[in-house]
C-alpha cells in the first residue's frame, strides 16, 4: 500500500504543489515564530545573566501591604543599612543602586531610545565594577554624567560634550565626563543608560540617602548562599529581603520567558489561522485526487483491497505530502526566524547578539503540525475513497459530487448559523465582560455554520453577479456556471479567503469605531488647549506645572496628580487637580450634584460612586501615605472617560495630607491659553519648559493623531499577520482553478475547436476565479461587519461615546483585494488553459 501511495504522490507532483506550499507556509510561520522567540529569548537571557555577574546577593525593599485606612509606609534602603551589609563577613563590597528614567537628547534635541528604554542610574564610588570606564572618568557632582558606549556612538557624543537631558521635567545640561561599557539588557536592546554620581542620582530619582537596591559581592571562597544567610542576620525582615545573584538571574530568565511566550502565543494564533485556512486546500486537493482516481481505487477494491486499506493509502499519501511540506516549512521557518532578527535590528531596535536557536522542540512541533494537519484534512476524502464500490472500476461514468447530498449539509449549516447568530445577538444584550464568552462561542458557531452553508450560499450570491458577468459574453456565462458546478469545492476555496477577510474586516470595524469613540471622548471632555506629558508616560515634576502657569498667555493650568489612598479598607487612586482651574479645562456630563472641586469637596465618577454607594452630599474618609486622613464630601458625580476617571480632589487639600518629602506624581498637566491652540502658543510653552526633549506638548489634534497612530500601528500589525492567511487562501484559489482547468481540459479543447479563442478561454478562467474570490470576499466582509458590530455593542455598554463606524473605503479596498487575489490567482491556471493542446484534450480518454 505504501508503494502505491508513494507512486501516487510522485505522479501528481504538480497537483500537490499548492497543497505542499500551503502546508509549508503554515509550518514556516509556526517554526519561524518558535525560532525567532527562542533566539531572542536566549539572547536576552544571556545578556541579562551577564548583568548579574557583579551581584552575589541583592538586598531589596520589603513590601508592606496597606491595612485598613492606613497606607503602609514602605521601607527605605538607607546608607546605614548599606554599611551594615558591607561589614558582613564574606562580603567584599556593597553597592547602593539607584535607578530611574532619564531622557537623553541627541544633537538635534530628539529623545534617544524611544522613551521606554531611557534609563538612568548611579555610578558607585570612584571605581564602579559594574560599569568599566572606557574613556574619561566617573561623573562627579550634579553637572557631570557618564553615558554608555553604544549610546555615545549612536548620538556622536564624546567626553567633554554638553548634553541635554531630563529626568522628570526640568532640563539639565550636564557635561559628559566619561563613557562606559555595559552588558545591561536595556542598552543591548537599543536603550540608553545615563549615570550620575550617587548623591545626584538619589536627588533626581528619589529622596536623598535612599537606594533602590543594595548589591553585594562575595569574597573569594564565600558562596552566594552563605553570604545571603549572613546578610539576612543583619537585615530586618520588614525592611528588606535578600536574594542571590543566581536567583535573580533565574527570576529574570523566567520573566523574559514569560514575556516572550506572550509574543509567541500571539504569533502562533495567526500561524494557526493560516494553517486552518490551509486545511481547506488540502481537503480540496485530496477530494479531487480521489475523484480522479475513482476507477483506480475501485480496481484496488476489486482486486481485494479492504476499505481500510484504501483509506490508509490516501492517508499515507497525505503523510508523505505533509512530511515533505513540514521539512520545507521548517527550513523556511528557520530562515524567517533569522530574517526577523535582522529586520528588527535594521529597524533600529537592537537585539542582543546570539546564535540562532533551533530547539528539538521546534523541529518536532513543525514536523508534527505539518503531518497531522495534512492527514487530518485528508481524512474525510480518504473515507470517501473507501466508499467507492468495486463496480465503479467497470462503469464508465464517474460518480461525481452532486447537489443532492447537500440537503443534510444545508440543514446542519442553517442550524449552526441560526444558533450562532442567536448567541451573538444575545451576547450583545449583556454588559461588557459578561458577554465576551457567549459572543466568542456564538462567533465560532456562526463561522462553522457559514462554512457548512457556503455551497448553498454560492448559488444565489453568484447568480447575483450574473448581470455583471453578462458583459463578458460567453466567457462570463461559462465562468458563472463553472463556479457553481462543484459547490463544495467553490465553497471550500471561498471559505479559505473568507476567514482572513472576516478577521481583517472585524478588526478594522472595531478599531475604527474605537478610535472615533476615544477621539470624540477626548475632544468632548477636554477644553484645555494643550496637554503636557512625559514622552515615556512617567511622572512630571511639579516644577512643570509652575513653569507652565507662569508662561505668557496661559489662563488656566491643572495637573492630574496620582495619589494612593485607602477608603473603607480598599486602595483607591485619587487624582489631584487644581480646583480653581479644572472647571475651565474639562467638561463632563454630570449625573448629579455640581462639578465643584476645592477644600473637602470632591467629584467622583459614576463607577466609583456606584461601587461605594456614594451620592451627591455623601461624606467619606480617605487615608493617605504617611498616615494622615481627610474627610471628603461628594459634590457631584460625573461620567468618566479613558483620560480622566475616579475621584478628583483639590491639590491643596492633598498636599496638606501628604508627607513633605513626597514626590508629586503628575501624569499630565492641562493648559489653557488666552489665544487658544496655535504654533506660537505651543512654542511659548515649550520655551517655558526649556525645550525639553522628554516632554510632549499636545493639542487636541495631536492627541487624536496619537490615538489614530496607535490604532494604525496595531491594525497594520494585524494586517501583516493576517496576510499569511490571505496568501494561503490565494494558493487555494490557484489550486482550485488548476484542478478545474485540468478536469475540464476536454471541454476547453472542444471550446477551442468550435471557436473560442485563447483570450476568451483565459477570460473565462479569470472570471471564474474572480467570482469565487469575490464570493469569499463578500462573505468575509459581511461576517466581519457583523462581528465588528456585535463586539462593538459590548464596548458600547461601557463606553458612552462608542458608535459603529463602518469603514466603507477600507471595505471597498478589501473587496478590491479579494478581486485582485482572484485575478492574480488565475494567472497561471488561465495561461495553462489557453495553452492546452486542443487535439490532445479532445482525444484524451
Amino acid at each position, binding site marked *: 500500500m505504501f508503494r502505491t501511495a508513494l507512486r501516487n504522490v510522485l505522479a501528481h507532483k504538480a497537483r500537490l504543489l499548492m497543497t505542499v506550499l500551503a502546508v509549508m507556509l503554515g509550518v514556516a510561520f509556526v517554526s519561524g515564530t518558535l525560532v525567532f522567540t527562542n533566539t531572542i529569548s536566549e539572547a536576552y537571557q544571556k545578556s541579562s545573566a551577564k548583568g548579574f555577574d557583579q551581584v552575589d546577593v541583592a538586598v531589596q525593599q520589603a513590601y508592606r501591604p496597606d491595612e485598613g485606612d492606613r497606607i503602609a509606609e514602605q521601607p527605605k534602603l538607607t546608607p546605614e543599612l548599606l554599611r551594615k551589609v558591607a561589614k558582613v563577613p564574606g562580603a567584599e563590597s556593597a553597592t547602593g543602586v539607584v535607578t530611574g528614567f532619564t531622557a537623553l537628547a541627541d544633537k538635534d534635541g530628539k529623545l534617544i531610545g524611544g522613551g521606554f528604554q531611557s534609563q538612568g542610574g548611579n555610578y558607585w564610588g570612584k571605581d564602579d565594577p559594574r560599569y568599566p570606564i572606557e574613556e574619561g572618568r566617573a561623573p562627579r557632582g550634579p553637572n557631570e554624567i557618564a553615558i554608555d558606549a553604544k549610546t555615545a556612538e549612536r548620538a556622536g557624543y564624546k567626553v567633554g560634550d554638553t548634553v541635554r537631558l531630563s529626568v522628570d521635567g526640568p532640563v539639565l545640561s550636564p557635561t559628559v565626563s566619561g563613557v562606559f561599557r555595559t552588558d545591561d539588557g536595556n542598552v543591548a536592546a537599543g536603550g540608553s543608560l545615563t549615570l550620575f554620581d550617587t548623591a545626584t542620582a538619589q536627588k533626581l530619582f528619589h529622596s536623598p540617602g535612599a537606594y533602590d537596591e543594595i548589591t553585594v559581592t562575595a569574597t573569594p571562597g564565600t558562596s552566594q548562599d552563605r553570604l545571603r544567610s549572613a546578610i539576612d542576620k543583619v537585615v530586618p525582615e520588614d525592611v528588606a529581603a535578600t536574594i542571590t545573584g543566581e536567583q535573580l538571574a533565574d527570576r529574570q530568565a523566567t520573566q523574559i520567558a514569560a514575556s516572550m511566550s506572550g509574543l509567541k502565543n500571539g504569533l502562533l494564533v495567526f500561524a494557526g489561522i493560516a494553517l486552518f485556512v490551509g486545511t481547506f486546500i488540502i481537503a480540496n486537493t485530496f477530494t479531487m485526487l480521489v475523484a480522479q482516481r475513482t476507477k483506480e481505487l475501485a480496481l484496488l477494491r476489486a482486486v481485494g483491497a479492504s476499505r481500510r486499506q484504501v483509506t490508509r493509502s490516501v492517508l499515507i499519501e497525505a503523510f508523505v505530502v505533509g512530511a515533505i511540506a513540514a521539512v520545507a516549512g521548517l527550513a523556511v521557518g528557520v530562515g524567517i526566524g533569522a530574517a526577523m532578527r535582522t529586520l528588527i535590528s535594521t529597524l533600529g531596535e537592537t537585539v542582543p547578539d546570539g546564535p540562532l536557536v533551533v530547539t528539538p522542540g521546534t523541529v518536532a512541533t513543525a514536523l508534527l503540525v505539518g503531518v497531522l494537519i495534512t492527514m487530518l484534512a485528508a481524512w474525510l476524502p480518504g473515507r470517501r475513497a473507501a466508499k467507492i464500490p468495486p463496480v465503479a472500476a467497470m462503469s464508465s461514468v464517474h460518480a461525481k459530487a452532486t447537489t443532492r447530498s447537500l440537503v443534510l449539509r444545508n440543514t446542519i449549516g442553517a442550524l449552526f448559523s441560526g444558533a450562532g447568530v442567536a448567541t451573538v445577538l444575545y451576547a450583545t444584550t449583556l454588559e461588557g465582560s459578561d458577554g465576551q464568552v457567549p459572543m466568542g462561542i456564538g462567533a465560532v458557531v456562526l463561522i462553522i455554520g457559514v462554512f457548512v452553508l457556503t455551497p448553498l450560499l454560492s448559488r444565489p450570491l453568484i447568480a447575483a453577479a450574473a448581470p455583471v458577468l453578462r458583459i463578458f*459574453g460567453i466567457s462570463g456565462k461559462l465562468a458563472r456556471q*463553472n463556479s457553481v458546478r462543484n459547490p463544495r469545492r467553490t465553497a471550500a476555496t471561498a471559505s479559505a479567503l473568507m476567514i482572513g477577510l472576516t478577521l481583517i474586516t472585524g478588526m478594522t470595524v472595531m478599531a475604527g469605531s474605537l478610535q472615533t469613540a476615544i477621539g470624540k471622548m477626548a475632544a468632548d471632555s477636554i477644553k484645555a488647549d494643550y496637554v503636557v506629558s512625559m514622552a515615556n508616560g512617567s511622572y512630571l515634576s511639579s516644577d512643570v506645572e509652575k513653569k507652565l502657569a507662569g508662561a505668557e498667555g496661559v489662563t488656566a493650568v491643572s495637573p492630574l496628580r496620582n495619589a494612593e489612598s485607602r477608603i473603607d479598607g480598599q486602595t483607591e487612586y485619587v487624582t489631584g487637580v487644581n480646583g480653581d482651574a479644572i472647571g475651565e479645562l474639562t467638561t463632563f456630563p454630570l449625573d448629579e450634584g455640581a462639578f465643584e472641586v476645592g477644600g473637602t469637596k470632591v467629584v467622583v465618577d459614576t463607577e466609583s460612586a456606584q461601587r461605594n454607594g456614594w451620592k451627591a452630599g455623601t461624606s467619606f474618609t480617605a487615608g493617605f501615605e504617611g498616615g494622615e486622613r481627610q474627610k471628603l464630601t461628594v459634590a457631584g458625580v460625573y461620567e468618566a472617560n479613558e483620560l480622566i476617571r475616579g475621584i478628583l480632589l483639590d491639590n491643596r487639600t492633598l498636599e496638606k495630607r501628604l508627607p513633605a518629602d513626597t514626590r508629586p506624581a503628575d501624569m499630565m498637566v492641562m493648559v489653557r491659553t488666552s489665544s487658544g491652540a496655535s504654533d506660537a502658543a505651543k512654542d511659548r510653552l515649550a520655551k517655558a519648559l526649556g525645550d525639553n526633549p522628554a516632554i510632549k506638548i499636545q493639542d487636541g489634534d495631536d492627541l487624536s493623531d496619537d490615538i489614530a497612530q496607535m490604532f494604525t500601528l496595531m491594525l497594520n500589525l494585524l494586517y501583516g499577520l493576517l496576510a499569511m492567511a490571505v496568501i494561503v487562501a490565494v494558493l487555494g484559489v490557484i489550486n482550485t482553478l488548476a484542478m478545474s482547468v485540468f478536469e475540464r481540459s476536454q471541454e476547453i479543447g*472542444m*471550446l477551442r*475547436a468550435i*471557436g*473560442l479563442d485563447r483570450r476568451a478561454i483565459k477570460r473565462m478562467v479569470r472570471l471564474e476565479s474572480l467570482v469565487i474570490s469575490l464570493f469569499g470576499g463578500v462573505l468575509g466582509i459581511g461576517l466581519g461587519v457583523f462581528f465588528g458590530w456585535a463586539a462593538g455593542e459590548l464596548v458600547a455598554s461601557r463606553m458612552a461615546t462608542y458608535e459603529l463606524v463602518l469603514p466603507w473605503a477600507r471595505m471597498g479596498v478589501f473587496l478590491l483585494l479579494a478581486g485582485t487575489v482572484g485575478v492574480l490567482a488565475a494567472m497561471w491556471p488561465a495561461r495553462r488553459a489557453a495553452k492546452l493542446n486542443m487535439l490532445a484534450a*479532445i482525444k484524451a480518454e
Partner: protein
Amino acid sequence: MTTTPLADRATAVAARATELSKVYGQGETRVVALDRVTVDFRQAQFTAIMGPSGSGKSTLMHCVAGLDSFSAGSVRIGDTELGSLKDKQLTKLRRDKIGFIFQAFNLLPTLTALENITLPMDIAGRKPDKQWLDTVIGMIGLADRLSHRPSQLSGGQQQRVAVARALASRPDIIFGDEPTGNLDSRSGAEVLGFLRNSVRELGQTVVMVTHDPVAAAYADRVIFLADGRIVDELYEPTADSVLDRMKRFDAKGRTS
C-alpha cells in the same frame, strides 16, 4: 485505379488540400503522418475518410479543419488559405466557417441542449437565425428536450445535439471525427442519417473520419488513406464495397 483528377469536377470546392504534408519529430524518430496529400471536398457532398489506424486519416481532417498545423503544402477553406493564419484568425475561422462533431465531449455539461446548440453563435456574439434553428432542431427531433442538460440525455441524443450545434451556425463545412464511435448501431444510424439529410436537403458539406464501413456507406464518396497517402476513392459506396476495398488494402499491406 478509379482515381480521377478531382479538381476537374464541376461543383464549387468547400475545402482543398494541396500537397499537404505533416511530419512529426526529426531524424530517427521522424514520422510522416501525411505525405503530399492533395484532395478537394466539394460543396453539398458527404465525404468519408477511411483508413487503418495510423494511416493519417485523423491528421488529414485536423489539418484541413484548422485544428492542427501542417509542415508543407496548403489548405484552403473557401477562399481562405490556412497556412498563413495566426491562432486567433484560425479560431475565428473555425468559429464562423466550420462545424465540428467529435467522438465524445461535444457538449458542455453546464449548458442546456439549446444553449449547447447555439454555443458557436454565443461565442461569436451573434444572434442565431431563428427560422434556421427551428429547422435544424426539427430535423434532429429533440424539440422537447431543449432545456435538458447533457447528463439527462442519452448518448445518441447527445450526439444529435452535437450535430445540431454543428449545423446551427450554417458553416461552410462540417467535420466529424468518428461521430458515431461511441454509439450503439441504432443511435449511430440516426446520427448518420441526420448528417446525410443535412447534405441532401440543406446542401451542407460534411467530411467525416470513420473506420466503420457501415458509417462510410452513408457518404457520397469515400477516400482511403494508408501511410499518409490517398490510396483509393469510391463514389456511392455501400458497406460491402467499402469493406471489399479495405480487405484489399489489408491484403496488400500483408503481402508487401
